[in-house]
C-alpha cells in the first residue's frame, strides 16, 4: 500500500503536468480554426451527453498535419532548426571543452570559484542577457566600436540579425549546460590514469586523446544533448538576434500562435517538434543509464 502511494506520486505529477497538457495540445492540433474564444472548434460539450461526445470526436481530423507537409515553410523550418542546433552544439562543445578541462585541472581551491563564474550568468534574466548581446553586436555596438578603434576594420561589421548572431547567442546561453557535465566527468577522473598512459609510452597529446577524451565521453554526450534538445525549439534567440534569413521552428510556432492566431496548426507544429525531440531524448536517457550502470 505504502509502496503504491510512493510510486503513484511521480505518476500523478507526470499525468497532471505533462500528459494532460499534452493531450490538450494534441486535441487542438486535430481541431479546426475558428473565430471564437477559444479560437478553434470543436469544444467538448458534456451537456449533450453521449451524442455530444460522439459529435466531438467525429469533427477531429489530421488536416493540420497534412497542411504541414504541403507548405514547405514548415519542413524547411524543422530542417533548418536541426541544422542550427547541430552546428551550435558542435561550436558549444568546441568552446566548452577547453573551459571544462581547465577547470578540472585548476588547483582544488580555485574550482568552486570557477564553478561559480560559470553559473553566475544565470543570476541575470536570460532575456536581459540576450538584449545585452544586441547592444554588443549591433552596427554601433561595443564590438564594432572596439574593432574600429583598434583599426582592425574600417567599416562596421553587420553581425546582428544574421545567423552569426544567432550562433553567438546560442553558444553563449547554453555554454554552462555543456561545461558542467564535461567538468564533472573530467573532475572525477583519476589523475594517475594520465601518468599511467605516459608511463606506457604516450605523449601528452596521445594521453589526452586515448584516455582523457574517452573517459569524458559520457559528459560530452550529456552536454551535447542538454544543448541540442532545447536549441531545436529555441525561440527567443533567433527572434531577437536573428534576421529574416534565420528560419527556426520555434519562431514559426510563435508566429502561428500569436500572429496568425491559428492554434490548431501551431499545435500540430508543436506535436511534430515533440516527435522530433523524442529521438535525442531517448538516446540521452540511454546514455545516462549506461553511465549509471558503469558507475555502479
Amino acid at each position, binding site marked *: 500500500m505504502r509502496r503504491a502511494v510512493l510510486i503513484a506520486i511521480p505518476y500523478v505529477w507526470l499525468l497532471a503536468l505533462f500528459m494532460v497538457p499534452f493531450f490538450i495540445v494534441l486535441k487542438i492540433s486535430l481541431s479546426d480554426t475558428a473565430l471564437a474564444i477559444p479560437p478553434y472548434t470543436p469544444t467538448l460539450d458534456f451537456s449533450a451527453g453521449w451524442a455530444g461526445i460522439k459529435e466531438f470526436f467525429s469533427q477531429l481530423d489530421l488536416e493540420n498535419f497534412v497542411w504541414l507537409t504541403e507548405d514547405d515553410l514548415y519542413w524547411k523550418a524543422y530542417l533548418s532548426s536541426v541544422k542550427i542546433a547541430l552546428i551550435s552544439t558542435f561550436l558549444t562543445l568546441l568552446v566548452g571543452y577547453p573551459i571544462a578541462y581547465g577547470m578540472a585541472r585548476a588547483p582544488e581551491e580555485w574550482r568552486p570559484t570557477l564553478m561559480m563564474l560559470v553559473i553566475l550568468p544565470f543570476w541575470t534574466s536570460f532575456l536581459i542577457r540576450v538584449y545585452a548581446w544586441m547592444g554588443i553586436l549591433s552596427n554601433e555596438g561595443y564590438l564594432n566600436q572596439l574593432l574600429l578603434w583598434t583599426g582592425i576594420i574600417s567599416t562596421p561589421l553587420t553581425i546582428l540579425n544574421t545567423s552569426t548572431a544567432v550562433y553567438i547567442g546560442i553558444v553563449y546561453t547554453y555554454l554552462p549546460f555543456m561545461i558542467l557535465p564535461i567538468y564533472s566527468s573530467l573532475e572525477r577522473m583519476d589523475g594517475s590514469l594520465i601518468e599511467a598512459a605516459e608511463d606506457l609510452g*604516450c605523449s601528452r597529446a596521445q594521453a589526452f586523446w586515448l584516455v582523457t577524451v574517452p573517459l569524458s565521453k559520457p559528459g560530452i554526450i550529456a552536454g551535447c544533448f542538454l544543448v541540442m534538445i532545447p536549441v531545436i525549439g529555441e525561440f527567443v534567440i533567433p527572434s531577437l538576434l536573428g534576421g529574416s534569413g534565420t528560419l527556426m521552428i520555434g519562431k514559426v510556432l510563435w508566429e502561428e500562435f500569436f500572429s496568425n492566431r491559428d492554434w490548431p496548426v501551431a499545435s500540430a507544429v508543436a506535436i511534430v517538434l515533440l516527435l522530433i525531440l523524442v529521438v535525442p531524448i531517448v538516446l540521452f536517457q540511454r546514455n545516462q543509464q549506461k553511465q549509471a550502470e558503469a558507475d555502479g
Partner: protein
Amino acid sequence: MNSDVFAPWDDPQAKPLIQFRNVTKRFGEFTAIDNLSLDIFEREFFALLGPSGCGKTTMMRMLAGFETPTEGQILLGGKDIDPIPPNKRAVNMMFQSYALFPHLSVWENIAFGLRRDRMPKHDLEDRVEEMLRLTRLEKFARRKPHQISGGQRQRVALARSLAKAPKLLLLDEPLGALDKKLRQDTQFELMDIQEKTGTTFVIVTHDQEEAMTVASRVAVMDQGQLMQVATPDRIYENPASVYVADFIGDVNIIEGRATSVGEDTYQVDWAEGQAPLTAGSAKNFENGQLCHLAIRPEKVTISAERPADAVNAVQGKVHDIAYLGNLSTYHVELANGTIIKAQTANTRRISRRSFTWEDPVWLSWTATAAVLLAD
C-alpha cells in the same frame, strides 16, 4: 663466498643498474629527499620501506620521470635519465591505485603500452597472451576493470606494466588494497614473476613484513634519508640504529651505559640495583657512553626459576599476555617498572600454559642475542 648466492652488492666489480648520486628533491621549503646516494643492481627485488612521508614515493616518481631531482643525478645503466621524459624511459610503473583504464578491457589495457610502440599485430597478440598466462588472467581478458575483483585488477596492473619488458619495474604499494590473506599469496606470486621475468623490481611499501618477504635488499628510509640498506636478515638481526630496530619487527630497547669487559664485549649498566647486562658489539663504545640494548622478544626466554647458566637474567612479574595463536607474547614488568616483551611458541595447548598474570618469572638471554646501538 658461495657463488650461487645472489649478492651483487657485495661484489665490487658489479655495475649497478640504477645509481642515485647525491640526489636532493625539494618541494618549495620541504626537503623530500636529502642528499641521498644509492645503488640498485640488475635482477634485484629492492624494497623502499618507511613511514608515510619519508620520501619513498618521491624516489619512485623520480625513477619513473614524474619528478626531477632538484640536485644530483640518477643514472640508469650508466646514463643520466634526467632529460628523458617518462614516455621514453625503459621503466614502467605499477600504480598504487592500479590506474587501469576503465574504458578498455583487460586485454586492451595490457596491449596499451605495446600499441604505443607500434608492435606488429601478431607479436602484440602473442605478448598479451603471454602476459595473461603469466598472471593467470586468460579467463578475464574480455572483461572491463570494474567487472573483476581487486586481486585480479592488481594482476592486470602488473601484467600491463610488465608487457613492455621494462629494464626496471616500479611498484608503488602494489598490495596495499588487498586483504591480508590475499596479500600474502600475492607476495609469493610477485617473487615468482620477478624470478621468471628477470626484471629488476623496486617496490615501495610501508609494510615491513611485505618488504622482508619479497625483497633481496631493503632500504629503510626516514625523513628523506636512508637509515640502512641491507638484506632482510641483516636489517632484522643487525639493525644500524634504534630507529631501524624499532621500525622492523618488535623489539625491547634498554637504555644504559657501556663498559668494555673484553674484546667486542660490553657490560651495560642500566638500572640502580640491577646486575649489568652483557652484550657483544663490533662497534666501539667508550666507557660510560650512553647506549641502547636492542633485543628481539623471541630471543628472550621466560622461566619460573633463574636459569643456572644464564649470562643475562632479570626478574619480574607477568603484566600482560598477548595470545596470537601460534605465539604468545608476555609483557613482563621488572621491579623498576620497565616492561620487557618475551615471545614463546605455543607448543602446548593453552590450558597447559606455564605462566599467567602476576606470576613471578625470570627472563634470560645469551650474550650474543642483543645488539648494542649508539643511537
